[in-house]
């Protein structure tokens, strides 16, 4: 990373940390899904941007993470968020192991459709097994304790814009650092060989199915953790978390931010959430606007917002 890039990153983290002190609570609570989706997208982009596999079913793992949190807090009296995140990661990994083993044998549309199919199978399970999952009403996610404290003196909003906000930020920063290390490791390099040219990768001794499966597993763990983070602010989990449009939304976020950049998906999550909020407040058919934006990105800005920023930089430099 360049010095200016590192400085921009520190500035961004500082600004996010300072936000609860300067912004209205409404906008601060909007940052919570950003941070949860940020974790999801870091993982999904390992699969998409670094391994070349587009999953249309990752909402499955978000839902697993969210329902794990709900089951633990409502039925098993486990309220520690740290344990919930661990359990969500483990549950997502357990589900991803067989799903990934099946899906990783395929690429392109076949991989995408298979992941979508598994996502919809889980959606139907959540919807129809009412006694286990609460059906279309879903389940409650009770307020978890953070770092050993229940923060019982805090109202719901104060809890969300205070301790939970900083806890989510901590998880996002940690997830980012871990992913930064992964993509710069020998393992990360092998993933990129698989993305660029599987035939050549195999001739060098890189086992393509094994690396695809490993990337799938890691991305599912990230989605599980993100799902558990996502559940607390809403206080309720329901089957739409696993629905295919939710998977579509997170792919959209990656495209919006730019999948060929490490931080692109984070920017995509941020832009998506705030854009969605802004558009929905003035126009009920927000998907219409988002559809047009998606078409624009695919046609004119395949590098997403990060691509546009990168293209702009030399122009600005030449003007200076």
């Amino acid at each position: 990373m360049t010095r200016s890039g590192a400085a921009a990153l520190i500035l961004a983290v500082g600004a996010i940390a300072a936000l609860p002190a300067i912004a209205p609570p409404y906008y601060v609570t909007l940052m919570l899904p950003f941070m949860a989706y940020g974790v999801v997208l870091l993982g999904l982009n390992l699969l998409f941007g670094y391994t070349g596999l587009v999953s249309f079913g990752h909402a499955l793992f978000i839902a697993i993470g969210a329902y794990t949190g709900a089951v633990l807090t409502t039925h098993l009296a486990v309220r520690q968020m740290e344990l919930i995140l661990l359990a969500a990661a483990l549950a997502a990994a357990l589900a991803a192991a067989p799903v990934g083993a099946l899906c990783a044998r395929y690429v392109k549309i076949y991989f995408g459709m298979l992941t979508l199919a598994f996502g919809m199978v889980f959606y139907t399970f959540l919807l129809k097994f009412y006694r286990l999952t609460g059906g279309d009403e879903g389940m409650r996610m009770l307020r978890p304790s953070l770092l050993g404290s229940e923060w019982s003196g805090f109202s719901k909003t104060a809890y969300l814009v205070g301790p939970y906000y900083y806890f989510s930020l901590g998880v996002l920063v940690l997830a980012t650092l871990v992913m930064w290390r992964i993509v710069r490791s020998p393992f990360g390099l092998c993933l990129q060989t698989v993305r660029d040219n599987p035939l050549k990768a195999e001739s060098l001794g890189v086992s393509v199915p094994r690396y695809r499966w490993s990337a799938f597993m890691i991305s599912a763990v990230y989605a599980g953790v993100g799902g558990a983070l996502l559940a607390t602010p809403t206080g309720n989990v329901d089957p739409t978390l696993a629905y295919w449009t939710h998977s579509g939304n997170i792919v959209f976020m990656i495209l919006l931010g730019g999948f060929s950049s490490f931080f692109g998906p984070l920017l995509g999550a941020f832009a998506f959430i705030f854009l969605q909020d802004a558009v929905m407040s003035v126009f009920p058919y927000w998907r219409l606007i988002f559809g047009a934006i998606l078409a624009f990105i695919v046609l004119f800005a395949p590098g997403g917002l990060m691509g546009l920023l990168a293209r702009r930089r030399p122009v600005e430099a030449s003007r200076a």
Partner: protein
Amino acid sequence: MLEARDVRKLYGAYVALDGVSLSVREGEFVSIIGPNGAGKSTLINVLTGVLAPSAGVVRFKDRDIAGIGPVALARLGMARSFQLVQIFPELTVLETLQAAAVARLGRGSRLFASLRGDRQVQREALEVAELFGLADRSHHPARSLPQGHKKLLDVASAFALRPDIILLDEPTSGVSTADKHGVMEILVSAAKRIGLRAIIQVEHDMDIVFGYSDRVVALHQGRILADAPPAAIRSDARVVDTVIGRRRGG
């Protein structure tokens, strides 16, 4: 080191290889020649475990390697380059060679190790880049290289595996005629430096074949027409008529 015995390969009713037997000993540079459709690429794919033979045996280092696949073969010490250039377009030259070094050293499962901090991987990749004259372009993305350099990178990455034996499918295709001997000199010198024990190449350019080979195997219609040193091949009338062709007025 490498031996194929009575290998047959059928594609439906079409016989691509028909009873091919071939052995490569340590220290040899063997060229496989033949007209289009003779079965050269099929033979390379069978020898490199990409294709399982319909019948016959392929052994490498006393192991049956028929159809074991390129990953297992690479780990066993056999590398290959392709007729059509195969690169990693988004990776730089150095990253491409690092990927080969990572695979060779079995470090691909290191999830949290720093690639940049792995001195052995860095050293090996840079050494191969220098051997192949690619060091000055080491930070260029592979997709931005001229075609001849892409070919060189494809071959160099196979060498970076430091294999015992390497199979080169038309190593000078896409390289200008003036540069072909230069490329071959680089290959031969790199082979010595990294301790390669044998080379097999498929090649159409007869100057290259006769200039560098210890032995030439001529294929025709899926069968071996001749297997002999270059001088004997040159004087074999059947090979000259079916594979090499006669010079006008010659």
